């Protein structure tokens, strides 16, 4: 999802994987309360179905929130300081802000009318309470629906307890009809029918069904875990097994604590019925945060007791038993554990004495993913998309490193490899804080410390905090020099040149960059050489040394094309475009800058895209295309707003010059109107407008025209291209996306609309758009 979408039906709510059963009264009440309060908290024991109820209510109320309904899943977050980031991430916004994420979030949400579903708040109660209090105070049209085992305790909060599912009355004689009137029985029947086709509740099994539902106290998760066992056990066997497992609970007060114990005992019973391999896998899977794919499971969980060749079957078996949730994404499946089941797995893993080993393997797997980013090759777009999917796992791995000083070198290696990703996607301030903190745990004169400080310096540069950037680079360079690590020294010189450039010291910046380039050439450190040539091109273009700038820019692009990477190429094209333009070849200069925008958009590098849009605005202004210049300045502002960025100081002079020329050409009023039109573009519209020399795109009709669709604007756009008979590969090329991203979108579209094929989707588009 690329931020900035507006229109009914905008959301990131997941498709429902199983039917929503019962809860009519509760659903009605949640919806009623949401019309009267801006903060509703659903409380209840684990497994009570709070999340499911919240999601259903949010989906049904989405029309009332023009800026969308957004699920913020907090289950995998352990660090309270990452809560704000989780919200940004759910909103599909890359947080590229400098400094305080909380205020950036309130500013982003201030004018928006949307619903946030904060799910699983219990372990971050204080942080969630402060977040919600801040949002309700600063963002008058934001409504929050929170779920947790306890209320947040914030002024204005309305609380609603989600009870277990309704059970038949206490009478001994209950008719089948009465039984089916209970939500608990209805849920059991639905889930049982999924594993035993034709399963129904009749006079023959009514007693056993009643016993089972009462025994499990109507707790939805417990009922689900039991029902799926009907594929191999009879109702009587289920009742006997559970009776023995739950007997230790006695007949106490059936309050929240009792229900929690019932759930835990049911989970324990379900665990006991698994094979040894399934049990072991469940425990090991608990190290993942925010889901996982099969390849990751093989990397992290296979080994003694769980052969790699059995992983696929075991994942299938755990899914069938409702231990794992699965969603198809393109051609692959993504799995996750519900939080309650993940916590149970973590306990078992600790008991097995495998926690540290498995977390180390998880860290190793993240290291491998990071290496694919650090390769700077033609898989860069796919590698970025993959690591973006594993964002929660990356934070979990870094969190592990912060607790295990021996792993700081691994953290530094991964951070070094991930620099380009973080430089594009942020969150700058959180990455910088976490890496600086990790650096404190490393030995003073170690490469690990130096690399962590260097990546932190890159983040500081992105935050416009040049003083810190310079200090961090000096520290890393000093260590690099002492330890004679040429790559580190060269990178530190390179990044350390940026603050000088920003300060107008072009000579100083040039000297550092030349030194970095010389070191890189001598030691054949290709990535430094590439970036140094590109950045030198920019500095020399600013200094008016155009021939040398052009020579370096062309060398950088040639190198980049040989490697296949896009990140530096985008900047090199931008600087080369400026130099070429300044030397007088304006058509080529502009063509190069447009190509730069294509690279930045393909990588979803919004920081870079905003820079290139500014270059194109400057060119348009110089050409006297004042309208286009104003549109582009507005579009750049939109990109910055969507990512909470401020204008990069390095480019302020250029920005002010472009604006001044466009205002002079158009007059204030017309400039403001054209700027506003540019600012109203989505990021993809802005990129298209910048790259293709055409008029402003017509506004895409809001998603959800006609019946409620739940499709985002991007999904609707892709759905239309599917209807135009384009393949996913063709759509990817058209929209500057990776094929994998398009695969994911198409799967989500089909899931959301409940369709089974592209043909059906084409028909649906024809029907809804006439």
């Amino acid at each position, binding site marked *: 999802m690329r931020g900035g979408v507006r229109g009914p039906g905008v959301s990131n709510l997941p498709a429902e994987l199983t039917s929503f059963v019962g809860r009519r009264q509760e659903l009605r009440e949640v919806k009623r309360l949401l019309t009267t309060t801006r903060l509703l908290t659903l409380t209840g024991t684990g497994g009570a179905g709070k999340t499911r109820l919240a999601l259903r209510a949010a989906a049904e109320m989405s029309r009332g929130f023009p800026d969308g309904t957004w699920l913020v899943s907090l289950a995998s977050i352990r660090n309270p300081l990452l809560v704000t980031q989780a919200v940004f991430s759910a909103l599909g916004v890359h947080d590229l802000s400098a400094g305080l994420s909380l205020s950036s979030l309130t500013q982003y949400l201030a004018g928006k009318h949307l619903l946030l579903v904060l799910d699983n708040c219990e372990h971050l109660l204080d942080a969630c309470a402060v977040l919600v209090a*801040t949002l309700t105070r600063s963002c008058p049209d934001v409504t929050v629906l929170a779920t947790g085992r306890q209320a947040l305790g914030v002024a204005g909060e309305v609380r609603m307890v989600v009870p277990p599912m309704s059970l038949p009355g206490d009478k001994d004689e209950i008719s089948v009809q009465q039984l089916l009137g209970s939500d608990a029985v209805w849920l059991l029947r639905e889930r049982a029918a999924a594993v035993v086709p034709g399963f129904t509740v009749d006079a023959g099994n009514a007693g056993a069904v009643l016993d089972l539902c009462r025994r499990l106290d109507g707790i939805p998760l417990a009922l689900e875990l039991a029902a799926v066992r009907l594929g191999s056990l009879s109702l009587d066997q289920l009742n006997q097994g559970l009776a023995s497992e739950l007997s230790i609970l006695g007949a106490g007060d059936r309050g929240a604590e009792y229900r929690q114990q019932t759930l835990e005992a049911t989970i324990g019973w379900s665990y006991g019925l698994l094979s040894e391999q399934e049990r072991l896998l469940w425990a090991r899977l608990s190290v993942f945060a925010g889901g996982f794919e099969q390849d990751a499971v093989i990397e992290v969980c296979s080994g003694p007791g769980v052969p790699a060749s059995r992983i696929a079957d075991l994942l299938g078996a755990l899914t069938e038993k409702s231990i794992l949730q699965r969603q198809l994404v393109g051609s692959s499946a993504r799995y996750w554990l519900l939080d309650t089941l993940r916590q149970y797995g973590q306990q078992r893993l600790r008991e097995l004495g495998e926690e540290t080993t498995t977390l180390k393997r998880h860290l190793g797997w993240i290291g491998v993913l990071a290496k694919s980013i650090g390769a700077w090759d033609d898989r860069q777009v796919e590698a970025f998309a993959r690591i973006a999917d594993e964002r929660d796992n990356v934070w979990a791995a870094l969190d592990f490193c912060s607790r295990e000083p021996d792993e700081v070198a691994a953290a530094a290696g991964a951070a070094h490899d991930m620099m380009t990703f973080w430089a594009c996607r942020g969150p700058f301030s959180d990455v910088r804080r976490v890496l600086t903190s990790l650096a404190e745990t490393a030995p003073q004169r170690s490469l690990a410390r130096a690399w962590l400080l260097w990546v932190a310096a890159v983040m500081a540069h992105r935050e*416009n905090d040049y003083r810190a950037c310079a200090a961090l680079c000096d520290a890393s360079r000093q260590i690099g020099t002492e330890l004679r690590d040429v790559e580190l020294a060269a990178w530190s010189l390179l990044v350390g040149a940026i603050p000088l450039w920003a300060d107008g010291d072009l000579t100083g910046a040039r000297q550092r960059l030349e030194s970095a380039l010389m070191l890189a050439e001598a030691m054949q450190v290709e990535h430094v050489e590439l970036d140094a040539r590109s950045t030198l091109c920019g500095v020399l273009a600013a200094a008016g040394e155009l021939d040398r700038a052009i020579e370096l820019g062309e060398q950088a692009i040639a190198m980049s094309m040989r490697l296949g990477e896009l990140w530096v190429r985008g900047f090199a094209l931008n600087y080369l475009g400026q130099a070429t333009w300044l030397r007088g070849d304006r058509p080529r200069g502009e063509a190069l800058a447009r190509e730069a925008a294509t690279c930045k958009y393909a990588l979803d590098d919004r920081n870079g895209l905003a820079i290139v849009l500014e270059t194109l605005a400057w060119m348009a202004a110089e050409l006297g295309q004042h309208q286009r210049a104003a549109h582009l300045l507005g579009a750049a502002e939109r990109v910055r707003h969507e990512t909470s960025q401020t204008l990069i100081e390095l480019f302020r002079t250029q920005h002010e010059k472009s604006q001044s020329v466009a205002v002079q050409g158009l007059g204030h009023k017309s400039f403001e109107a054209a700027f506003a039109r540019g600012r109203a573009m989505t990021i993809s519209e802005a990129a298209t407008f910048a790259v293709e020399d055409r008029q402003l795109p017509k506004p895409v009709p809001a998603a959800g025209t006609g019946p409620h669709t739940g499709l985002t604007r991007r999904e609707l756009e892709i759905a239309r291209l599917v209807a135009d008979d384009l393949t996913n590969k063709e759509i990817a090329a058209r929209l500057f996306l990776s094929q994998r991203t398009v695969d994911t979108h198409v799967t989500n579209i089909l899931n959301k609309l409940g369709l089974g094929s592209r043909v059906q989707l084409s028909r649906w588009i024809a029907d809804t758009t006439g």
Partner: protein
Amino acid sequence: MSGPGQGTAAAGAADHPASASLFIVERRLPMINEYQLAVLQAALTAAACRFSSRGDGVRYLRSIFVARQERLLSLFVAETPEAVRAVNEAALIPFASIESAIELPGPAEP
């Protein structure tokens, strides 16, 4: 003068038990504006109130912003640095360091 870590003379700190100490939390906030400072202050206050209202032994006194250095220094009275850390994390405001501090009181007011 208070002894190290006692801070009993701090305004607002005197009503805390003798086991409470003064802590200073430092953060760098480049380019922060007034709006952001107001959000930060409200979040710190809200978080500290939650903790102190349930008797968690921590109290937020005040913050001082040194604009030229882009540094914010926040004073807390607490029984442990962990409590100060927890309040700052709950406030969703990152920090650079938490150090115990000594207060040197000025002359008594007339």
